[in-house]
């Protein structure tokens, strides 16, 4: 609050209501990890992602449907949650799991790291909805891999 004295000054008076507890920080629409966290050292995100076992050979051999399962496994690594819990989340109009576009971008980043190059450029994604579902993202990835293998360049 400013020290200037003015007429009709408005004050937010942030400190006046004491030190009451703030509301919960991040209520999430996404399914959270269940149960009480074990008293062991947390496993890092990098290690959780590595445990999914994504590699270039797997990416090349997967159908769009198989890529969908891989994407769900990666989401589980990101959220530290079992895939079964994640699959109970909200559905997209295409019938697959709805995901925030930012999470899709994270998956694309992981895949690019494994594949060795960026497969998808955001500026060339024609339908933003493809980044909002596991199915859409998997189809986008599959098409990009197919194009890349066919020598037509990244999507």
């Amino acid at each position: 609050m400013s020290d200037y004295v003015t007429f009709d000054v408005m004050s937010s008076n942030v400190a006046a209501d004491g030190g009451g507890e703030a509301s919960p920080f991040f209520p999430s629409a996404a399914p959270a990890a269940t149960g009480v966290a074990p008293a062991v050292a947390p496993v890092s995100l990098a290690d959780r992602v590595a445990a999914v076992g994504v590699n270039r050979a797997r990416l090349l051999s997967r159908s769009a449907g198989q890529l969908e399962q891989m994407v769900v496994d990666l989401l589980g690594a990101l959220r530290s949650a079992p895939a079964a819990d994640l699959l109970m989340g909200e559905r997209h109009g295409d019938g697959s799991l709805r995901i925030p576009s930012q999470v899709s971008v994270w998956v694309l980043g992981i895949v690019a790291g494994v594949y060795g190059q960026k497969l998808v450029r955001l500026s060339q994604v024609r339908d933003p909805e493809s980044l909002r579902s596991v199915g859409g993202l998997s189809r986008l990835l599959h098409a990009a891999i197919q194009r890349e293998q066919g020598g037509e360049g990244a999507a």
Partner: protein
Amino acid sequence: MSAFIEPAGSLGEAWLRTLEWVSMAGGYAINVMTTVTDPLGPEEPAIRDAVGAILVEGHRSGTRLQTVDTVAGTIFPVDLYVDPGTTYEPGIDVTNKARLDAAATDLYAAYGDMLPILTTEQINSRGTYFGRMISWPGKTGGGFNQLAERINTLRNARDHNHRKRNLEDIAVGGEGEGLMTADAIIEAGSDKPKSDGDATRADGVETASAAGLAGVQVYAANDRRPRGFPCLVHIDLTVFDGRLSMAAVYRHQYLITKAYGNLLGLSRLLGFLAQQSGYAAGELVVHATMADLERDTYGKPGVEGLIDAARRRMLV
């Protein structure tokens, strides 16, 4: 003429009051200060629905539109943060501290994973706000993590029961002066007298200048951009009466396309810093040096319709 919008508890009401004031002012105003007194409180669904109905992905009169969540995610990517379910406190046990630290580290790592992809979007070609916060200057990983350092010093202050403090800032635009070395940060966080003067004023407030540390934003001398990223240039963090408050400076705030999402993202960022530092969340203030109601984009009837719709829904 500057304007101090009447503070509101929810970010939605604060946003709507700002729109109403700038509308009465003719569509533009300078030095507009918007205050949210309970930034971690729930959103007003009626207001969120009204703005959400307009902000759908696409273009409007040449302006790129993004959803509220997308805009908010540029400041704090909440979808990449797994809430550890605990809050820092002095004497916190090893297990809970490890959970807190791991959640923050995972957030930084996840954002680093996505940064190369994010910058393939034209709108992110100069980097992203959150990228600048965790990896200055923000276009690639491996830069200076301002958030991690600010959390370290705030935790240190919390451990020493400091209830007034304004050492921390987050540089977003230009060249941030005082992105301190680890040694300087450790010294700043300690209770030892500083070699170049007392870091605490007679009234007990720690100050950056008194500590010989920079807290002032210095803009890039070669900045010739007439418009564009970044609009958010600086974030100040202040502890007062044991609460952590945030003030963000925008040099041009787009009140419809961006402002609601900006407030939401900043609120989430404040929540993250409060959780990680152990301070209760104070107020959120946004200072827009130019507040723009965007009548060129949405038309005067469109803007007034949005304001009316949001206000009407609030009254239902």
